[in-house]
């Protein structure tokens, strides 16, 4: 057929009934002329996509997160998420307009939107937004295919394939981001195709500019929805380069026009998207101005900008004798900390950690290290240092002249609460990181002990802040970044994101590193006070003990606080944190899948399962496999064409082949750039990441249909189209109970399991549809009986029919029919505090002391690793900073809700008032709450039954 039968293929104009076809060189498809087809198409889409959209009336899958984010936006509490904010803002905006007050927490999959609340959550309105975008995708795909100069029949077939894909339908009916993503991607592609058409007609005309700028605008939207939007940018980018390259080869075009082309695209495709992206973050940061659970990810300066997370001003000057807290710059691990617990191994001396919350145990005296002129430490005949009496070393600075802390000064850091010195030695490796180049850091000393040379640290100023001139010369609070070098061993005080085990309460490890990465060895003073430095200046301290004048003590001292970061620096910091968090999502997930399994639709995702209904994300196999076949056909055909070309065939002179080749190449480019980069990613991936590529593959499938039916008479072509669409619809309906959470039977479910690897749970469905009368309804409304009761009643009613019920009858506990449907793991960590959590944000402010009481209410739970927070069901990870949740820095009087306190206790990092140490508190708090556990000591000692 290729090359020879050109006449018949292109003979459409000769057949009068053929749907008129616009060619590249003719008028672009205008939307108005397509209205007679668009309207019915949209109506069908509306019907299928909005059918029973309120079903189910409980939280499904990642609605946990994206609904939850809406709550946070409405409460204006700062959170961290790996995706840019645009789609989430749109969801939150819709919720707000629908009257949502932010009082629902979307905590677990399956949680009813209605129960126990007078005002229902406007979840239907919230779902409506992605659903409408899903509906819009159908006419959009039609227009795109028309704009690509394909036949009307083809465009209808293509758009119906999009409509009747179960995966696209499932995703668009829920509060999820992918519907936004696919829509914006498709809109970008459409605008770009129209732009290219316009380019051939009239460059730099108003339409040309309109299409260019709207391409850019949608590009901005894609990338502001998810970072995978970068693939769309790559697609448009490659297309643009190809276009410019061909202009460049047009020697008749003057260079000035070429530059105009180039600059116009820079404006439209780089500047505009960037502005959109920036704007979305501006709104995001503008809305989230309260402290929330994302604080812990951000730098202290960033946190300081959030309402409820401020810090009082502190003295700017740091001098010998100051009492300081020292913060680690690079990680959010917190402040240099010690407490009266010892390392279980190594030297067995006192622990040094990083601790994120304000606490008296973070306070250190900075004292001068004894110089060569100072008297040596008295020792006994064995060289063991003798204890010395007298007042504490820090006392003497009350009368000494104030000496600022400068570069190169050798100091000792004495822990105020335990009177131990910050100490390091060659002889022991750190507790967790046991490398040769790392030394242990401990708190060492005893009352009266004068310390030894291993307590000496040298201050090395790294940089000051440009706005504070003295900060580069000497250490100033919050402005000077410095390193602490251990004098004897030359290692640097260092910390990294490695938590200590249970005995260290999960706090961050501090070591002394001989070859540290620079950022992880940087510190700054967060707060500072000195007996001779005060705001007013103390005239009574004008003279030191030697009778010399002390100008520092007399002068009023300056107080200082974090510099307020500009929007751009906050924006940039957020980008970095998002990137790191995203890269860190490497853990396996029950439903994750690798890209190579997507085109064959190997496995879906269990979204929701309740009351014998399920939502399972699985595509319409006909559409998916057809799309894959279309891609393979393209690759094969293209390879053959290239080989033939090389061997002298003149296929590329055939305008039909050139036309199909160019159109298909564009679609294939879009497909591959949206698909293949995933293969390089090592993070968790899911089948819904394939949807943008699927969209392009379906368009390619439509193109294949166009090519195959090219030789047919219109009437037969229509018949072929109807047959194809009919089959697709049948298959769509076959799987529709999984899409709409509808009723189903075991038998039909098993019949629908075309591949063994599709793991929806058929055993959960009843054997006949009639049984649904006895189950709780799919949509709960106000004033109904509690679903739990209804469910129990139902079980009793069907007794003996289902396996679950049979077990119940046997007195077996309800085992949760299928392992996957159980309560997500997240609940394990936040369970018992439910009552307290319900009133979470509204809780009365609790003074700093009550944490202990709150802790008493908390269950004794295993110390949670950060990763454990992740919800087994939902994909979007609950992001918890490694250092736990954050409390206010100004220890007393600030609000602290119970939920946070619990979380902190669970993480073993509860803030402790008055210098109690953590474990005592935890034990004391935990004991009364402990259930009377069976006493047997060690299983090894068990006596075997006779």
């Amino acid at each position: 057929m290729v090359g020879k039968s050109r006449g018949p293929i292109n003979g459409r104009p000769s057949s009068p009934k053929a749907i008129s076809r616009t060619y590249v060189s003719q008028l672009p498809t205008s939307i108005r002329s397509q209205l007679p087809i668009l309207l019915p198409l949209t109506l069908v889409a509306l019907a299928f996509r909005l059918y029973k959209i309120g079903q189910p009336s409980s939280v499904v899958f990642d609605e946990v997160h994206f609904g939850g984010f809406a709550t946070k936006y409405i409460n204006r509490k700062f959170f961290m998420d790996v995706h840019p904010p645009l789609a989430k803002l749109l969801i939150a905006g819709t919720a707000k307009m629908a009257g949502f007050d932010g009082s629902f927490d979307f905590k677990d999959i399956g949680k009813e939107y209605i129960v126990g609340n007078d005002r229902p959550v406007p979840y239907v309105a919230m779902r409506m937004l992605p659903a409408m975008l899903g509906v819009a995708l159908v006419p959009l795909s039609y227009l795109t295919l028309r704009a690509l100069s394909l036949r009307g029949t083809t465009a209808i077939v293509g758009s119906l394939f999009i409509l009747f894909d179960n995966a696209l339908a499932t995703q668009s009916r829920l509060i999820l981001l992918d519907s936004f993503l696919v829509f914006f991607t498709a809109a970008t592609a459409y605008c770009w195709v129209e732009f290219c058409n316009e380019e051939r007609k009239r460059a730099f005309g108003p339409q040309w500019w309109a299409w260019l700028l709207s391409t850019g605008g949608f590009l901005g939207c894609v990338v502001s929805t998810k970072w995978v939007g970068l693939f769309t940018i790559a697609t448009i980018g490659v297309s643009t380069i190809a276009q410019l390259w061909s202009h460049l080869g047009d020697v008749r075009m003057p260079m000035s026009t070429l530059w105009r082309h180039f600059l116009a695209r820079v404006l439209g495709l780089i500047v505009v998207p960037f502005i959109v992206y920036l704007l979305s973050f501006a709104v995001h940061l503008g809305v989230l101005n309260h402290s929330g659970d994302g604080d812990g990810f951000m730098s202290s300066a960033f946190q300081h900008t959030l309402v409820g997370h401020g810090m009082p001003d502190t003295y700017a000057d740091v001098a010998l004798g100051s009492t300081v807290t020292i913060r680690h710059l690079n990680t959010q691990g917190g402040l240099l900390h010690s407490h009266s617990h010892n390392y279980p191994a190594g030297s067995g001396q006192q622990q040094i950690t990083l601790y994120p919350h304000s606490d008296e145990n973070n306070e250190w005296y900075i004292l001068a290290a004894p110089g060569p002129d100072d008297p040596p430490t008295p020792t006994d005949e064995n060289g063991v240092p003798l204890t010395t009496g007298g007042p504490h070393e820090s006392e003497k600075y009350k009368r000494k002249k104030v000496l600022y802390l400068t570069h190169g000064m050798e100091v000792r850091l004495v822990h105020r609460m335990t009177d131990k010195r910050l100490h390091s030695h060659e002889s022991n490796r750190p507790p967790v990181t046991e490398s040769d180049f790392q030394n242990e850091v401990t708190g060492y000393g005893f009352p009266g002990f004068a310390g030894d040379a291993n307590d000496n640290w040298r201050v090395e100023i790294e940089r000051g802040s440009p706005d504070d001139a003295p900060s580069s010369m000497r250490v100033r609070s919050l402005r000077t970044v410095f390193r602490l070098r251990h004098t004897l061993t030359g290692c640097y005080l260092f910390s990294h994101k490695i938590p200590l085990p249970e005995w260290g309460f999960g706090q961050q490890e501090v070591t002394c590193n001989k070859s540290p990465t620079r950022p992880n060895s940087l510190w700054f003073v967060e707060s500072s006070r000195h007996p001779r430095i005060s705001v007013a200046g103390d005239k009574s301290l004008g003279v030191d003990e030697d009778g010399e004048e002390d100008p520092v003590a007399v002068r009023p001292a300056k107080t200082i606080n974090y510099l307020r970061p500009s929007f751009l620096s906050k924006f940039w910091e957020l980008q970095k944190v998002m990137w790191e968090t995203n890269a860190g999502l490497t853990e396996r997930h029950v439903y994750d899948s690798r890209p190579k399994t997507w085109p064959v639709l190997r496995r879906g995702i269990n979204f929701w399962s309740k009351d014998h209904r399920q939502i399972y994300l699985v595509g319409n196999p006909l559409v998916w496999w057809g799309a894959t076949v279309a891609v393979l056909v393209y690759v094969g055909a293209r390879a053959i064409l290239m080989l033939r070309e090389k061997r002298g065939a003149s296929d590329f002179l055939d305008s039909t082949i050139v036309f199909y080749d160019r159109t298909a190449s564009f679609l294939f480019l879009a497909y591959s750039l949206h698909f293949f980069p995933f293969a390089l990613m090592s993070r968790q991936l899911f089948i819904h990441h394939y949807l943008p590529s699927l969209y392009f593959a379906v368009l390619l499938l439509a193109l294949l249909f166009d090519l195959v039916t090219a030789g047919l008479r219109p009437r037969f072509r229509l018949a072929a189209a109807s047959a194809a669409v009919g089959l697709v619809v049948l298959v769509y309906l076959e799987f529709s109970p999984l899409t709409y959470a509808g009723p189903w039977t075991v038998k039909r479910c098993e019949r629908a399991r075309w591949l063994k690897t599709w793991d929806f749970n058929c055993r959960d469905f009843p054997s006949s549809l009639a049984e649904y009368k006895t189950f709780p309804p799919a949509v709960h409304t106000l004033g109904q009986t509690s679903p739990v009761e209804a469910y129990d009643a139902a079980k009793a009613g069907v007794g003996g029919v289902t396996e679950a019920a049979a077990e119940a009858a046997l007195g077996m506990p309800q085992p949760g029919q299928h392992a996957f449907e159980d309560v997500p793991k997240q609940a394990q960590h936040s369970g018992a505090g439910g009552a307290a959590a319900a009133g979470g944000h509204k809780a009365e402010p609790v003074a700093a002391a009550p944490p202990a009481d709150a802790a008493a209410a908390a269950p004794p739970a295993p110390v949670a690793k950060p990763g454990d927070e992740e919800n087994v069901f939902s994909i979007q990870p609950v992001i918890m900073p490694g250092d736990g949740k954050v409390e206010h820095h100004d220890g007393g009087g600030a609000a602290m809700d119970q939920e946070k306190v619990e979380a902190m206790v669970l993480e073993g990092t509860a803030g402790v008032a008055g210098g109690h140490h953590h474990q005592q508190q935890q034990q004391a708090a935990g004991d009364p709450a402990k259930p009377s556990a069976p006493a047997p000591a060690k299983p090894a000692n068990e006596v075997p039954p006779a």
Partner: protein
Amino acid sequence: MSGMRSRKAAAAANGNHDAILDPSLTESQKNAALKNGTYAGSSDDVRGFEQAKRRRPAVVLPESTHGVTLANDGAIVALLFLGAAIVRFWKIAHPAQVVFDEVHFGKFASYYLRREYYFDVHPPFAKILNAFAGYLAGFKGNFDFENIGDSYEKAGVPHIKMRSLPAIMGSVQSPLVYLIMRETGHAKLIGLLSASLLLLDNAHIAQDRLILLDAALCLFMTLSLYSYVKFYKQRYNEFSPKWWTWMIATGVNLSLTMSCKMVGLLTFLTVGCAVAVDLWNLLDVKRGLTVRHVMKHFFARALGLIVIPAFVYLFWFWVHFKILIRSGTGDAFMSSEFQQTLQGNPMLAQARDIHYGDTIAIKHKHTNAFLHSHIDRYPLKYEDGRISSQGQQVTGYPFNDTNNLWQVHATVPLPEEGGSGRAVRNNHVVRLLHVNTQSYLLTHDVASPLMSTNEEFTTVPWNDTSRYNDTLFELRVDGLSKTSTSPWKSKSAWFRLIHVPTKVAMWTHNETPLPEWAFKQQEVNGHKDVNDKTTLWFVDELNPDPTASDFEERSKPLPPRKVTKMSFWRKFVELQMQMLQQNAGLTQSHPYASSPINWPFLLQGISFWTENTEQQQIYLMGNLVSWWVSVLFVSVFVGVMGADTLAQRRGIEPIARNVRKRLGSTVGFFVSAWAFHYLPFFSMNRQLFLHHYLPAHICACLAAGGVLQFIVVEEVAGPLSAPGPLLASNTSTPSHPQDETPRSPSGVRLSLPTTRSDVHLPRGAIFAIAVLMMLTAAMFWFLSPFTYGTPGLTNQQWLKMRLLSSWSLHFLPSMQELAQGKS
């Protein structure tokens, strides 16, 4: 027909020039048209014609003057080898201590000499070479190279001889670089420059004079490039003996490169791409070759560059397995079947058949915990509100205990008498009775305590028949086929226990221990992914059934057993998979690991060895002049070619065609080799070190010379490829890449290839090269204390050596001394 026309117009508007030019007009037709005066010719043809007029007249080509001759270049090659050997052998005995990765590669040499099995992520060839050097030197392998700084002299290790082999291999590289430059038509001085950029490079020297793998890797990589160049130059003599020889040499060298380290794959890619492009050009119809002929080319290359190399690669593994026949440190990485092929392996010594009625203790392979149960039950309700079956707990417990004992029960009638009829076999369905509580192991569709996705394991009293089906487990021995009925053995057989009704595998993990109610023991649960690698268990302890008739016999200690056999192919596949997995797993941080972006600029080195009393340090650091110059020239090339491509698109040709062609086929090849040996590292997640850049640096040295010649001389040397039948028969074909002879618009040769001509460097260029070489030598001299680890320097002197502040040297003055120095 309007449709067709409009599409054609569209294609034209798209700038598709090829489509406009009718390729059906073949060269001969053009030729005819030209004679008739009807062919206008393309602009290219005209330009070629005009260029031709400017060039020298035709001279008949004498056949013998191609390539490099002994008389011409022999002395230089010898000098280069000598020079390289001198700087590599100088003080090679120092330090007489273990340095850096000699810890590993020295140790592996010991293992070869002791014939003990070890495991490593690299293929064996280079390590076998090291061991061979040790063997020749009389080393018995009685030293373990435990720590950096261990003394060789005390242990009597012949370290000088062992280090000599890499040093010799390193010394060969510089002459090879020179030869490659000469073979690709570069001037002698240019070749000398490229060679000395490598010869005097401190990083290569430091790496070459230690017992490491990189000297061998770089040598075979350079040899691969050299033989490929030689092969390509025979392209007019296709299928001649020389052609075959050099092609197979290329394949073998490539394979040896890959047998040194997996990164040899990058060399494969380099040459593979060049070959693919070459084949694609051969396919071109204008070349006039039949498809059959092109296929012949294709299969010849497939044989020489894929099949033969594969055999060479396999051969070294075969040698590897032949040498290592004793049990050693690498056993634990391999499957039980593999381990039984090693002499003295404990699995081999203690494996016994398991019979029904025997009492066994089962251990989890991954966490080394025993399958354990005790009378305590699961709490009715977990903290999250989920409920359990309240059955007896089944846990994983790491210590020996009577509660770890289980008795194997049959599910089908057994023969009365003892013997093999009672043996448990692969695929049997069994029940396990917990001896102390007389209850059967069971799992069911209840979520486990910690993982809602996995099934709970519990037990049920032996007399409770209602749960019979849930106590059935199928035994699947790892590595056996589904139909195999081999007996189940203790120690040696890893197996999975698959629950018959629900198809989950018994599994345990040590991520989170169970809470207090289970004494913080490990959770045991049913894993849905049956074939997960961590679902393997083995029988650690076997007590034969005392009631069976053959009890006496089976309780006797086992006689020593012969090693079992395993086919080479299966051994190879297993080891190869394990190597890839372990390699990908090398992700933990290392203080001297660096990211690839630092490498060409030498922002960080690696501290190989330090000595405190004399303050000596060996610090892997390249010659700054050599590295910076080479990477600068590479970027110049990329810039020039980019600008040239853009200009051509606008119809301007800033570079003469023959020069551009030559530049593309020589320097372009070197630069692509550099890119192939460097850029892929950016996508690797594993630990990366500066020395991974060494092969790329050799390519950069080659490229540097080529670019320099391009800058200073506008001429190219006379034809490089040996003339052959193909050249004579196809004089009318225009597209031999390196055939610079200009031709008339008709494609008829205007002048036959000229005599071999060398490019002549202008005086300025000679001066520039001399300066560059002197700078390189000076930098080498300056950095030599890093390279040789001698002499020791004072802190202040070390500080002066630290040219970039990011170098982490060991001996530096303290802050105090610095402050004093300033004041």
